[in-house]
């Protein structure tokens, strides 16, 4: 009889890998997304566009905390909150900030966050404590949560994808990515595009009204992967020949990218200035989303809304791109062309792909530089600093230390 444990697999899956270790209490150190620039994005892009759509579009369907129909009942039974998908930092600052702006509009918020770095470690504690605090806020549906998954994991048949479907469909999707969607030689972009494709597949099927997609990504012209960039630019290339207006707009944005003939083939990437490459990326990403929207049934119009660029440190310049897209379903009413019905239903006109593409190119031309805005307007910067300080303080940070940090030169303080 062999009593050796060698080769036996019975103990597999019974014993844990390691002994439990205590988590260190979180440290209050300031990070890139604590900068005043980010507060500008929160206020002027994410919150402003969300607020506008709550007021103009979604409010009819959203349940109101002030309504007697929901009072005295569990917030868990709220069926129509403002649904948000986020990639939050450890202290859920973006969600806190949005809640502060949205809750006065009398609606509930339910969110799902993806943050792979939260487990039984220090970062995890930050997230757990922050999530506890945010879900305790009035009007936040208490099963809102940050799951321990990468956003990219939704591309597969995963737990992350199950979570995505359980909390959706979403009014607001805010992909504040750690990585980059800019095609680069590191080739780490593929999972993002697959995940984004999966998200659109789900949203286009399940969401019945306009929704917002925010994408924040770093752009790295110096390490562009030309092959991937050409692939991303395919919907642009196909527009060259078909639409003169679009061609002209693109030429104005990045003159060296458009081939002499103005016809298909490929875009010129050699010798493109960094600025041109960044603008080309903006149009290409928008056009890629638009192509997917137009390929869906019903079709979805994709429009770029107020978008921004900003710096994260002094050396690299404004390499962070914060894009806002508004997705609108093309639901057409049943207009009776035969005359049998006496109802006069007005047909709805939706912009064509080509028209939308022109507008996209115009919007890219208008991407604003946050650094410039802040340096031009000291009063605004000071107000944003106070807002950011309030926000951080609400998340347990030392307000004075923060202001000192910013005054010490936030851009140089930490990359």
């Amino acid at each position: 009889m062999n009593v050796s444990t060698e080769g036996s697999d019975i103990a597999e899956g019974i014993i844990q890998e390691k002994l439990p270790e205590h988590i260190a209490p979180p440290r209050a150190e300031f990070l890139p997304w604590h900068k005043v620039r980010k507060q500008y994005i929160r206020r002027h892009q994410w919150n402003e566009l969300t607020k506008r759509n709550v007021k103009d579009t979604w409010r009819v369907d959203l349940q109101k905390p002030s309504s007697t129909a929901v009072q005295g009942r569990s917030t868990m039974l709220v069926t129509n909150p403002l649904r948000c998908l986020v990639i939050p930092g450890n202290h859920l600052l973006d969600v806190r900030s949005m809640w502060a702006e949205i809750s006065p509009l009398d609606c509930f918020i339910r969110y799902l966050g993806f943050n792979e770095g939260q487990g039984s470690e220090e970062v995890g504690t930050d997230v757990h404590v922050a999530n506890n605090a945010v879900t305790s806020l009035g009007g936040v549906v208490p099963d809102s949560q940050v799951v321990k998954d990468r956003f990219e994991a939704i591309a597969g048949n995963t737990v992350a994808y199950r979570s995505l479907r359980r909390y959706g469909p979403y009014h607001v999707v805010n992909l504040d990515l750690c990585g980059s969607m800019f095609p680069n030689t590191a080739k780490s972009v593929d999972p993002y595009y697959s995940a984004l494709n999966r998200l659109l597949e789900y949203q286009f099927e399940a969401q019945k009204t306009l929704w917002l997609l925010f994408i924040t990504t770093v752009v790295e012209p110096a390490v562009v992967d030309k092959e991937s960039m050409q692939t991303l630019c395919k919907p642009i290339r196909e527009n060259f020949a078909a639409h003169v207006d679009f061609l002209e707009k693109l030429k104005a944005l990045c003159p060296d990218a458009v081939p002499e003939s103005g016809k298909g083939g490929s875009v010129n990437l050699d010798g493109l200035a960094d600025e041109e490459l960044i603008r080309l990326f903006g149009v290409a990403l928008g056009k890629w989303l638009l192509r997917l929207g137009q390929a869906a049934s019903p079709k979805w119009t994709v429009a770029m809304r107020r978008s921004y660029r900003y710096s994260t440190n002094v050396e690299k310049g404004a390499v962070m791109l914060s894009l806002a897209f508004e997705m609108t379903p093309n639901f057409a009413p049943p207009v009776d062309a035969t005359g049998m019905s006496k109802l006069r239903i007005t047909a709805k006109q939706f912009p064509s792909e080509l028209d939308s593409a022109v507008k996209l190119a115009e919007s890219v031309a208008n991407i604003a530089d946050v650094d410039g805005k802040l340096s031009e307007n000291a009063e605004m910067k000071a107000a944003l600093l106070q807002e950011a300080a309030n926000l951080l303080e609400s998340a347990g940070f030392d307000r004075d230390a923060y202001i000192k940090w910013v005054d010490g030169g936030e851009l140089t303080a930490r990359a």
Partner: protein
Amino acid sequence: MVELDDKALAKGIRATETSRAPVEGTLETDQRVLARITEGIYRQPASALRELVSNAYDADASEVVILTDAPRFGQITVRDNGRGLSPEVLTQLVKHIGGSVKRSEKGKELDVTSSKNINLSPGGRQLIGKLGIGLFSVAQFTRHFLVITKTADDGFRTVADITLGKKRERSDKVEAVFETGHYRIWRESAADKKAHGTEIKLLDLLPRTRDELASDDLWTRQDYQKADPDAEKSEPPEIHIGRMENKTDRLSIQPALPWGETDGPRERFEKLVQELRTLTNNRESVDLRKVSDNYIWTLWTLALSAPVAYLEGHPFDLTNDGEVFFFGLENRLKGQARPLEIPKGRSPRKTLKLKSPNGATAGRFEVFMDGVQILRPILFRDLPRTSTAVKNPLLFIGAHRQEFEKKARELTGGPLAFEAYLFWAPKIVPKQHQGVILRVGNASGALFDPDFMGYETSELTRKSQVTAEVFVTEGLDDAINIDRESFNYAHPHYQFLTKWLHSAFRQFSNRHKELGKQLRTARLRSEAAHAHEKVALKVRAALKSRGIEDVPDVMLLERVQKADTAKLRREGTIVLHKEMVIPPSTQTRRTEGEANRLRLAEKKAVAITQLLHGMGLLDSLSYAEQEKLIRDIMEIVMLEE
């Protein structure tokens, strides 16, 4: 009395050799006993969730949210909006495991117990917990968890990071250090001053628990069956959360859940219950353990144990609409259940002034797990019917208060008060609802006891058709074992309830038998009357087809009725003697069915005589010959297959 330390006590005992004066003291418990409790004393992971839900209830929470990342089960969160734990209460919790301040004067000071009644929460709920070990039930799940808690008007959250059993050192020679676990606690400033509640975050779930929650055994068994054509086959579950692909983040089997993505929390649970009803249509009984996976079972057991409202209403609120028959139970060993006079449209609760609440004993209490609202899933209406004589469900209701007067409280455990019901239906859905649950403060750690606390075995069928709940409002608490999943059988309250329940079951059983008998007799009679009518019509039609309108009068009499026979015959009635024309019964027992058979035979004998007489075929025969002929015909008619 001064307590002696170990050495002094031993010395004292020896000293009694000469003094003969005994030493006295109170028994003491070793710390290790309690330390062992924190290692886990529960049978299944659901128990830990139940304990955390109970803690939330005792903290006057109105909602509890349980979040898992099923079927991966990496982390579990249990979040409530209860009072939260102040640093003082948290200190008590980690420094005195098993020394809960609930139900104590100190509990009043720390605001975890009502200032008026130590058995109630500050909000007036009958407390479930009492020992202070519930939190450590999480040892079933993990060795590492976080407690994030906040009380109202506190500008800080308190965070406790707790590791269990880390430094326990043991060898064959020595068991020196016995450390239950370790805590690290700190405060985090909070802007939301008004917020309150407690969140337990279970980190790094133990591999075995994770496998159990994910029904690993069940799916592995399916794998073996697929691989081995000779293996005994079992059906895969019909309702499940799906399966993870080994060592990846992907699902290899998609969830099969009865609800849709757009369904609300309540609708989801309703659909789960409806699915079980549907499954009952094509099988004898629905065994939830077979048709679902461990996740659904966990959800279900939580629904049975937590003090939440009934999905389809409390049985005491069933209105009298003619579907359910109501009976009252007597509080005597040889009592008799009697029909309850409940006016149409009214409920037993109103008529009998019953108090057991539908849900929490004070305020709202709702539990949600992964977006599904958990409600007590015991069903009283729309249950499947069978061919049994009694078709309508029967609800037997009892209430009792036992003071145990004239007995020392130490012996009786104090008064015992409860309300209860036994609900009979031809099929109980699912199978796991057959039996009795004892609820204290409307919560229960134990599931249904299908044996009805040891009720006689001859009642197997009836036991499988009864769901019973006993709602204890006073007493029995001390009889609950520390795992809260079983009872101390020796406790007088448990003993009392056993006897009461057995009496109640007997009362139900007798009444059910009686009802069945009545219904069967009535049915047979009605069937017989119908058959008799058919026979008479047949004769009338047969004669009419031959142009004969008058059906001759024929009577069957006992031979002893000689005088009547002669008189009737004189008056023109054809009289035959029963004994002469009807073959005797072969049955030894005179049952209602046999009696009906003989009555029908008599009716047929009369009919045959009428037919033959009507056609004039008997005119030439004497009465004796007529009787002989009819007897021969009846022998043939009544021949059994």
